């Protein structure tokens, strides 16, 4: 999948991953809490991209406006759950991630303590329309995704600054 245009239909194999977050603790081992008292969780990875970002500016050279995993911290839930660097996140807890802004993606991820994700990883064989499912690759699950009927796209960044 060399770059998928957001909003168009997409069918591919994806990898299901379950990530259980851990409580964020400080150096003494005390749990860190949000300002409103709720405990904070961390997943241990970084995401980049989104419909409102320009992938040509990404240092990793991502081909499209999807949400990608740009870093995985050592010794973290992310490193333990099977997530890998440069995975493209297609869905999190049922929410489609091919048509979200960066901020929306971050918010969705932070919502729940357990993430059930579907990711696309380079090297996954392309979905074959006719005939036999892949033998021996049962961890892939076909990911039929059809464009939602949104007309409204999150706005582009202003690129140019009048200098007056």
């Amino acid at each position, binding site marked *: 999948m060399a770059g998928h245009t957001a909003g168009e239909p997409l069918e591919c194999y994806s990898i299901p991953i379950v990530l259980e977050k851990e409580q964020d603790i400080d150096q003494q081992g005390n749990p860190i809490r949000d300002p409103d008292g709720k405990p904070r969780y961390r997943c241990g990875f970084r995401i980049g991209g989104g419909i409102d970002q*320009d992938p040509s500016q990404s240092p990793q050279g991502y081909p499209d406006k999807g949400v990608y995993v740009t870093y995985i911290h050592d010794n973290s839930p992310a490193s333990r759950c099977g997530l890998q660097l440069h995975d493209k996140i297609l869905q999190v807890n049922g929410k489609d991630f091919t048509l979200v802004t960066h901020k929306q993606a971050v918010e969705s991820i932070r919502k729940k303590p357990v993430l059930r994700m579907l990711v696309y990883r380079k090297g996954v064989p392309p979905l074959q329309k006719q005939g036999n499912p892949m033998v021996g690759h049962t961890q892939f699950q076909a990911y039929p995704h059809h464009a939602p009927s949104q007309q409204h796209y999150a706005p582009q960044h202003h690129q140019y600054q*009048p200098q007056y």
Partner: protein
Amino acid sequence: MSSYQMNAGSGPIRAMGPSGDATYMDLSNMPVDNKQQQTMMWQQSQYMSDSGIHSGQTTQAPSISSKSQGNEVDDGDMDPTKMMFDWGLGADTYNQEQVDDINQQLNQTRSQRVRAAMFPETMPEGVQIPSTQIQPDQPTAVQRLSEPSQMLKHAVVNLINYQDDADLATRAIPELIKLLNDEDQVVVYQAAMMVHQLSKKEASRHAIMNSPQMVTALIRAMANTEDIETTRCAAGTLHNLSHHRQGLLAIFKSGGIPALVKLLSSPLESVLFYAITTLHNLLLHQEGSKMAVRLAGGLQKMVALLHHNNNVKFLAITTDCLQILAYGNQESKLIILASGGPGELVRIMKSYTYEKLLWTTSRVLKVLSVCPSNKPAIVEAGGMQALAIHLGHQSQRLVQNCLWSLRNLSDAATKMDQLDSLLHMLIQLLASTDINVVTCAAGILSNLTCNNQRNKVMVCQLGGIEALVRTIMQAGDREDITEPAVCALRHLTSRHPEAEMAQNAVRVHYGLPVLVKLLHPPSRWPLIKAVVGLIRNLALCPANHAPLREHGALPRIVQLLIRAHQDTQRRASISSNGPPLTGYVDGVRMEEIVEGTVGTVHILAREAHNRAVIRGLNCIPLFVQLLYSPIENIQRVAAGVLCELAADKEGAEMIEQEGATAPLTELLHSRNEGVATYAAAVLFRMSEDKPQDYKKRLSLELTSSLYRGDNWTDPPGFEDMSMPLEDSRDHMYNPQASQGGMYGHGGPHSDMGRGPTGYEQVPIDSMQGLDIGSQHGSAYSPMENLPDLANPGEINFDNLDPALGTHPDDNPNLWYDTDV
């Protein structure tokens, strides 16, 4: 009596005494142009009849005798065969016996003369030796050899001593090592003192240096003793050793650095002096010292020393150490910051006048000023004002370092208020003959005037416009100077109370021709972009329209627009199958040029003549095409220029013929208020001579689309764009471009040019003035109620603060990742 005759020609005069070739005066370099002169010279010396023993006068070689009446020498009729020699007062002729006598005396005293020349200290008092010097300014051979022979004597003496010293030291050192390691403090003290004495002389110093156990023992004694005198002696010894390469190596290897750093807390001033000077030498010449000093906590101690000391030389050495340690090392800079370095350094700049100290301190500030954490601290401590004090100093190196530091700091100082004296100095420095000074001054002014009304007004009032225009004229094609100067003018010509005065002032000081010239080669894109923006501002002043037109600004700007546009089209067609190519040329995007040029043409189109020219240049198709651009800013400026052009009937017709109606109608629905407003205005003007019901329908549609509720609030997701002002920066100076000595020197500029457009200031009332569908014949009067449509262009902010050391790729707005 016989008389000896002197040859008329020159020649050495030989003593003809019984000893053969003895003293021999080389008179061959006497001027012997004519015989009269020669004899005159002879005459000038005074010969006593007593051969000069008592008078100390030189005597002539005894082989010469004379006849009297040397006065006759002046006559022109001297017989060359009979040179007469005047022996001075009461000259008598000497007979042979007397001559022999004199000869003998001179011979006997010869050895005295030689001894006196070589060993003057051995001569007994009061002895007069007959001298053989004839001319007061012509030394004898012995005299001329006296100085070299004395030097030789000293050398031999030194050698003899040296040998002694070396022997002594070699025998004594093992003993001294043992004593230094003794338990009894008094013994240690005595041993240390002895070693200190030895270290003052060269041979023994070398012996000490070459003995690692000795150096180790010294350092240990220094570190462990409680007796401050011992410490002082040991420190003094190390100080002496530190003037030699082997000494430095020996100190370093024996772990001297941590011990010396510890000494920096000593209460005794001489110990402090020894310690800091030794450390300074180590830092300068010994590999690995920097790391060792850092590890030993030297930085914190040195910063603390700045606070407690008043000795200017001491402070100079300490600040130089700080500079060596901090250069190129981010961690050191942070440690200095944490220890309160900026405050101390600024205080020094304010309080002292010793040039060397000011210079070393300014270098530390320069090194720190590129660190993003140190910058705000320095500015807050009053660094800008402190550095500004010295901009008029005689010392060029001090002025240059202050300027570099100021330039690095200037982007963090745009909110500062008490910079008036600095601005004043900078304007004066623009007239300097030193290119580096002018470059820095222009750059600092450009940054300080960015978005700061007070500074803008102050610079205008201080004659900054004239100075900048003159600078641009004199800079020729040196873009390092012209670009920041043009940017400064651009800032000064908009968005402050004196902007109009500034726009006029540029014209008055003959700035327009040179600026239009800068639009042509060899100017590169960053400069062109800046000039285009400045011309846009200048065009806000109606008096500038005619001169700008006369100098051919408009055709050239249109030419640039076409070129930039073609470039963007080319990139778009190449990348139609993949992600969009963002093309930077010289660090500038062609889309920015398109936007800038169209914006400028927009303002220029306010004047009727210019509109005719624009129509003549066949730009309208291009503007209509730009309406289709995906970039909102370009849509806005394109709609804006069409709006102005549509003010003329021919313009309106041409626009309609190009099929602008369709894209304009589309743009009515744009969530960008400026775009929608301009689009509506163009459509309205184009509809001037359309049938009435068309107008009515149009007006309904216009008002409905413009008053659509969600168009006037922030569109949903606007806050997603998260473009805080601080991130929208013009990248001006890259001080870390090279660390090879030009630290802080300006590098190429790369423009990022982004930020909020500020359209929220378009007044809602602008369209309410539209008397659309009116019964009046002329449709143009209602348009007078739309003065504010011109304003959206002016609301735009200046280039905001430059961010040092970041690259366009690091711009967080385009693509960033978040930790979850």
